[in-house]
Structures are given as C-alpha cells and as structure tokens.
C-alpha cells in the first residue's frame, strides 16, 4: 500500500476562540464525538491516536498522547505525538497512513486540541536560544521573521502593498468563515496593514499570527476499510513530504530558500501533479512573508518573483488560485495545533465550504512550517497534496 491507498473519511473542528471557555480535554471530547457521529465508527474501532506535538497546553507533558487516550477511553495499537512544529498536523496523516501500512492499526484519530491561551504549560525548549538570541531580547518568531523579511528585502525587494493584499485577502475569507476567531472577523484594508504598529521592524502587527484556542480532528483509515464502512465522501492524501534542517550542514545559506523546494517537489511527484495543476493552495501562514517565500519555493513563480506573483494573482476564493480560504491562521487565529489550513482544504474538497466554496475541487495543496532556527528561516517544511475520492 502507499499513501494514496488511505482516506481521510471525516473532519471536525470547533470554533476558534480568543481564549477557550472549556478545558482542552473537553474540546478533544467534542471532536471525538463529532467524528464518531459523522463516520458511524464505534469508539472501539479507533485503534490509533496521533497527536500534533505543537501544543502549549500539553507542552511540558512527556505523556500527552497516553493521557489523552486515558481521558477519552481509547485503547489503541499505535499512540504517537508528532514533533515537527507547525508541520505536525499534516504530518499526522502521513504517520497514521504509515502505521496502517505497517499493520500497527486500522483506524486512526488524528487529533489537534490545544488551549495555549487559556493554559500554557511551557515549552521547556532546550535550544540555541538561551545562549545566542535571548541575551539580546530577540522576540521569538516575530524577531526571527524580522531578520528574515529584511534579508528578503535586501535580496529581492519587499512590496508592502503586496503583503497588504495578502492580509486583506485572508481577512475577507475569515469574514466568510463562521469558525474563525470572532475578534478577527473585522474587515481590514491595505492601509490598515501599512499603518499597523511595528512589532519587530519590518514585521508589523498585521503580519503576525495571533495565538488562539480550539480543536480539530480527522479520521484516517485505508480506502478499503472506508469502502467497507460505506464512507464514500473522502479526501485522499496523494503525496506528502517533509524536510527538516534544510541546508543544515552548510553555512552562509540563501535564507530566502527553504525546505519547501524539496518537500514540494517530492509531494507533487508522488501525487503525479505539476504545481500549475494545483487548484487551491493552503500554505502555512505564521507571517505574511512566509506566503511569498512559499509561492517561490513551490514553483508558482520564480525565486524573487513572489511579490509580483501576489500582485498579479487573484488569491480569493473566487480567484484563479484560491489561497487559505478559511482566513489562514493570520485571520482565523493560530489554534488547534495549527491545523486550520488543513481542515479548510479538506472541507473545500468535500464541497462544504459554504459561502466561500471554491469552484474547482480537483485538488488542494496544504503546507507546514515548523520551528525557528538561528538566523535562517524555519526548521521544518512540509507539503501534502489532497484530492477528493470521487
């Protein structure tokens, strides 16, 4: 079997909340209940739990996936937590499929529940930062992306109006998404983007993602099992690839390049798709400049042409390349272990996009970005190509 012999048979998500009014385990329970109801699977048929490790609430627990099984009453043959940062949510699908192939399990719950605003238990991260960036007050991701965007500007030039267009496009999508964080569902203009206050110059407030609470989940099983269960409306993962520590054995690299070059090429090759065939794009968005770099790395345009590509392309849900049609994380909120763009892609391919439904559901490409390295760009890059089952 290969990845494409598996199916995502159902998705579920809560509304994104600025701060959850419920415990993280209650949110996890809501997702489990919704997925059991949607699929008709009995709880006892769920024999794998795959969590995203991008969690602030579970952050300091070494036993997060096991305690989640205990809390939800799940008995499983495969219990896993994926640790590729913001790549983890799409990474759960590849790992669930691999575990099914290996005979470890048959029906996997991929679960993304996090309430890192309501209750953050600390990352306790052991990294270069305590010696090499924290003594200078470099503020986490905004500081790192400040360095990255300035380097991009020096090499290729930044068009602030193009970044503003991205901000407005995603915000307009959030206005059509009832599950987006309510506090973010306020219209903005390019002027608002340009005038938003500096956080880590050149990074402005409206360049940045906002942490929020929420949960989402998927059921992944073999296509054969899905058919036996009568689950015909599925989404098929055609190709997946990830790259961690791109050019990590080199010094003085071009920071405007990323591991998406490799992850994109491999995922598309496995899917037998050309980048020009992609009908909707759901790229990981922690900062707007990351979207521009991904257009280049995935080959939608040439290196250095990302700003022009944004200017020349209608990225709205009715446009030629619909992008982050749920609002992206920047306008829907960074919630549910950064699974929002993945859930949106699956929703669109199942034709359940409502007022923001894209016309062409032939396929979708979802990406991940994970962790921040020293003066480069990011630690992990991932890509997942999806198609509807029929």
């Amino acid at each position, binding site marked *: 079997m290969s990845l494409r012999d598996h199916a995502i048979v159902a998705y579920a998500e809560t509304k994104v909340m600025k701060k959850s009014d419920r415990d993280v385990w209650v949110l996890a329970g809501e997702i489990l209940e919704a997925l059991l109801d949607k699929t008709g699977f009995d709880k006892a048929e769920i024999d794998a739990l795959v969590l995203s490790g991008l969690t602030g609430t579970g952050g300091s627990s070494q036993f997060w996936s096991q305690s989640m099984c205990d809390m939800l009453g799940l008995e499983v043959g495969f219990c896993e937590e994926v640790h590729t940062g913001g790549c983890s949510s799409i990474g759960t699908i590849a790992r669930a499929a691999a575990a099914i192939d290996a005979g470890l399990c048959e029906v996997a719950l991929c679960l993304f529940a996090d309430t890192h605003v309501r209750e953050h238990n600390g990352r306790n991260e052991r990294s270069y930062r305590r*010696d090499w960036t924290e*003594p200078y007050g*470099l503020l986490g991701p905004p*500081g790192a992306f400040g*360095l990255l965007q300035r380097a991009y500007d020096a090499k290729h030039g930044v068009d602030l109006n193009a970044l503003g267009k991205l901000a407005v496009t995603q915000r307009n999508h959030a206005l059509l998404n009832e599950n987006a964080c309510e506090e973010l569902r306020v219209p903005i203009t390019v002027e608002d983007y340009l005038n938003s206050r*500096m956080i880590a110059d050149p990074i402005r407030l409206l360049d940045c993602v906002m942490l929020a609470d929420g949960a989402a989940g998927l059921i992944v099983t073999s296509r054969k099992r899905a058919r036996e269960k009568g689950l015909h409306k599925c989404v098929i993962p055609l190709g997946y690839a990830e790259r961690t520590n791109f050019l990590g*054995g080199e010094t003085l690299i071009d920071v405007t390049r990323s591991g998406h070059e490799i992850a994109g090429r491999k995922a598309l090759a496995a899917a037998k798709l050309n980048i020009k065939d992609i009908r909707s794009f759901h790229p990981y968005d922690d900062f707007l400049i990351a979207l521009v770099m991904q257009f280049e790395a995935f080959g939608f345009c040439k290196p250095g042409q990302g700003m022009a590509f944004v200017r020349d392309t209608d990225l709205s849900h009715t446009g030629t390349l619909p992008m982050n049609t749920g609002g992206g994380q920047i306008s829907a909120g960074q919630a549910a272990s950064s699974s929002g763009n993945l859930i949106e892609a699956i929703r669109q391919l199942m034709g359940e996009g409502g007022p923001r439904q894209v016309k062409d559901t032939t396929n979708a490409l979802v990406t991940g970005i994970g962790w921040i390295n*020293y*003066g480069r760009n990011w630690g992990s890059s991932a890509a997942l190509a999806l198609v509807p089952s029929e």
Partner: protein
Amino acid sequence: MAVTIHDTLDVKRDIKHYDFGMPFWEATRQKKLVIQYCKVAKKYQHFPRPVSIFTGRRRDIEWREVSGKGTVFSFTIAHRGPPAFQGAEPYAIASVTLDVGVNVIAGVVDCTAEELKVGMKVKPYWQPLANGEHLLFWQPDRDAA
C-alpha cells in the same frame, strides 16, 4: 520618521551556557571572539555545536580567534521586547556576516536608525557581565572603508 535606537546594555542577564560552547565564553573574558572552525570543510560555524555541521565529527572542530569585523546581513528593530527588555524598546538586533564567512547574531549599540543598513560595516563591542565574561554586541565600524 526618525526612530532613536536604544541599546540594551542595562538589561540584567543571567545566561546559561552549554559545556561544549564554553571556549566561546571563556575567550570573552579577554574580549576575544573565537568561532568554531572545521578543519576538513575549511569553514566556520556559529553557534557552537558538539560536532562539525559539515562532517558530523567532533574531531574536525577547532576554535579560531577572529577579528569580529563584518557587514550587516540583516537586522530587526524590536518595538516590543520580552519582559526583561520592556522599556528599552526600540532596540536593534543584527545578523552580521563576519569577514571569515559566518553569520553571528548580536545586539547593536552606538548606532542611529539612519546608519543601520544591510551592508553596514561593524566591529565588536564587549559588554561586561557579572561573572567576568563579556557579551558581544555590534557597533558601527566607522573607520572601515
């Protein structure tokens, strides 16, 4: 719009080190900048690692003293700092490409917003720490061509 860039020299710091990076910190006691060098790849690497990032071997690493002169590769101006830095904003942090070919991130001192540009020449500024070590900063190298 004119922005005055502050320095962060008055911020209290208690920096925890990894043992394999100690030669860097020991050298700062004499205000010397030492960087890891891979004898096989003939390239520098920073921050310090337990092995050569080029070959994967411990034995290929040595420490070399460098001048610390370089050019600004990139920079950011923090308008919002972590708790210990609040009140010092705005302050600048630069990634500098040393003349020997490796990037090193540090804070920037004695520099105006007008001067601070990608490509600006810099040299080290050493701020004493309570334990006798020094913390590296960048200052404009106004004598450099």
